[in-house]
């Protein structure tokens, strides 16, 4: 197990290097001169050159990359062009809302998707199954911001149960935070749950045909116990996989949701940086999201190995 874990962790390093190379070239091969942007309209050519030298923009590209990457692994992602603050500090300030939003979403998703998928499989090809899977197709067809606005209209504008937008940090109390992230998390969870419910249904259907399920029936166990205890045990691997794959989608959703609900998370930080062409922040925050994604997939791989010993090889 330990050896397998070490192998997987080592495999992540070249990917992270390639990702940083992609992100770096993305920002540096596109038109627009950050030095000009930073200097403002009234700067003299000498001032612009001075800024260029300070940001290493006068160096050859490969050297710029080496310098940037060298700093990045020491967690120095440069300073924001816009505010002048270190990028790591900006990301650090914004981690909490994004993390809370993703965690609450993930919990809601599993709570919605797994029972839905399991019951669908249990009652396969009945009206219950059709309704549940119909919900699933609708769930990932409706864009997250469309769902978000329907929920805002009903629960915030109409009934005033939840705030229209904004985020209350954890310092102000757990309940206040949860109250402020309820609508965004539910919007995201509805989309995400649709995907996972489908996979759960397919896996439980497979599991229900296994011999040990027949044995459980023969022993006289009731349906709920067979379904939620015996059958669901074996669907861990595929469901965990999809949670891993779907995490990329979730990140995309988080970016949009943070914009809709005006939540000061890393998604907002990234979108704001992109519209302001704040290059260091763009690089830093996309690198942060990619590192999270690689990390999640690493955890997913390792949890396979924990759930299913055959994977360790």
């Amino acid at each position, binding site marked *: 197990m330990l050896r397998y874990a070490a192998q997987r962790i080592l495999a992540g390093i070249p990917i992270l290097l390639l990702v940083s190379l992609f992100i770096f070239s993305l920002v540096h091969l596109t038109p627009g001169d950050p030095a000009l942007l930073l200097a403002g309209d009234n700067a003299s050519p000498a001032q612009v050159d001075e800024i260029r030298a300070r940001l290493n923009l006068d160096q050859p590209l490969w050297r710029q990359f080496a310098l940037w990457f060298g700093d990045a692994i020491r967690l120095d992602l440069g300073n924001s062009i816009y505010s002048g603050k270190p990028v790591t500090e900006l990301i650090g300030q914004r981690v909490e809302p994004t993390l809370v939003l993703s965690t609450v979403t993930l919990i809601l998703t599993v709570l919605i998707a797994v029972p839905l998928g399991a019951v669908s499989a249990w009652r396969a090809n009945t009206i219950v199954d059709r309704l549940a899977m119909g919900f699933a197709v609708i769930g990932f067809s409706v864009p997250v911001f469309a769902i978000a606005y329907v929920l805002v209209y009903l629960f915030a504008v109409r009934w005033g149960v939840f705030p229209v937008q904004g985020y209350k940090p954890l310092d102000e109390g757990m309940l206040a935070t949860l109250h402020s992230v309820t609508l965004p998390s539910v919007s995201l969870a509805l989309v995400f749950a649709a995907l996972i419910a489908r996979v759960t249904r397919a896996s439980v259907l497979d599991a229900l045909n296994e011999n040990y399920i027949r044995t459980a029936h023969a022993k006289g166990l009731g349906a709920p116990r067979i379904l939620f205890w015996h059958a669901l045990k074996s669907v861990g691997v595929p469901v965990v996989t999809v949670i891993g794959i779907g995490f990329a989608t979730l990140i995309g959703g988080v970016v949009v949701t943070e914009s809709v609900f005006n939540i000061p998370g890393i998604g907002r930080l990234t979108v704001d940086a*992109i519209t302001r062409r704040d290059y260091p922040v763009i690089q830093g925050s996309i690198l942060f999201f990619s590192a999270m994604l690689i990390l999640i997939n690493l955890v997913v791989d390792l949890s396979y190995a924990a759930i299913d010993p055959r994977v360790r090889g």
Partner: protein
Amino acid sequence: MAAPNSPPQTVAAARTRRRPFLESLAHLRRDPTTVVSAAILVLFILIAIFAPLIAGDPTALNPIRRLGPPAPDAWLGTDQLGRDVYARAVYGTRVSLIVGGAVAVLAAIPGVAIGIYASMNRVGGAIVMRLVDALMAIPAVLLAIALAALLKPGLPTLIIAISIPEIPRMVRLVRSVALSVTAQPYVTAAIAAGSSRSRLVFRHILPNTLAPVIVQATYAAASAIIASAILSFLGVGTSPEVPSWGGMMADARGFFRFNPELMFYPGLLLSVLLLVTNILGDRLSDALDPRKVTQKMP
């Protein structure tokens, strides 16, 4: 799939062989959900083509009638600049369909070429797959937003920005299908019989990738339609003059409390288009590819 277990046939025999691919498509004609979804999709396509015939000017400003109620010349009312919401919704169909269709094609062609290359070349394949891993480690929406914002704005940029994150998914799919086909005994037999590389690719591998690629391209179209709406919604899509559903929703944000319908019309159209695209993708996938090897992403 084109008879995966039969030995290579002569050209004459191939002409008369059964066409399971087309047969399974014909099967779909009897499924009511598929027929209704296809009809709705065709309706959207017709609306996009004949937009000038069924709607007025979507860009005409009328400052006196800002946020006006439905009227005979503006069936769904007017937006914050007095533009006809119905006309904008009708014309908005164009951007969604163009982006969806273009991305499906632009993801499929390089995806198939690179995927087949990766399956046939050991060293090149390994390099390609590491690049694919890395590209897939960047969240697709973020990559698209960054590309769209940093390149010159416009429809071509939007399409390229959304296609690039879709290509790696296609490469992975095609490579895995190509590898499994290459492992089939009949391909080994073809190699032993002296089949050339190009014959191997065009006669055996390419036809077998067709079904899963079509299904994956349908899903790519759906995710491209969402992505383009997200990009327009965040203000990095097409220019504000070009009517798009995402752009309409972005405009509606400021007036949401008192004119929520401005948000709901384009949102509803977007959802219906995506719903029928996803349903068609699912049905195609069931009909063409019972093992479902495609990676589904909403």
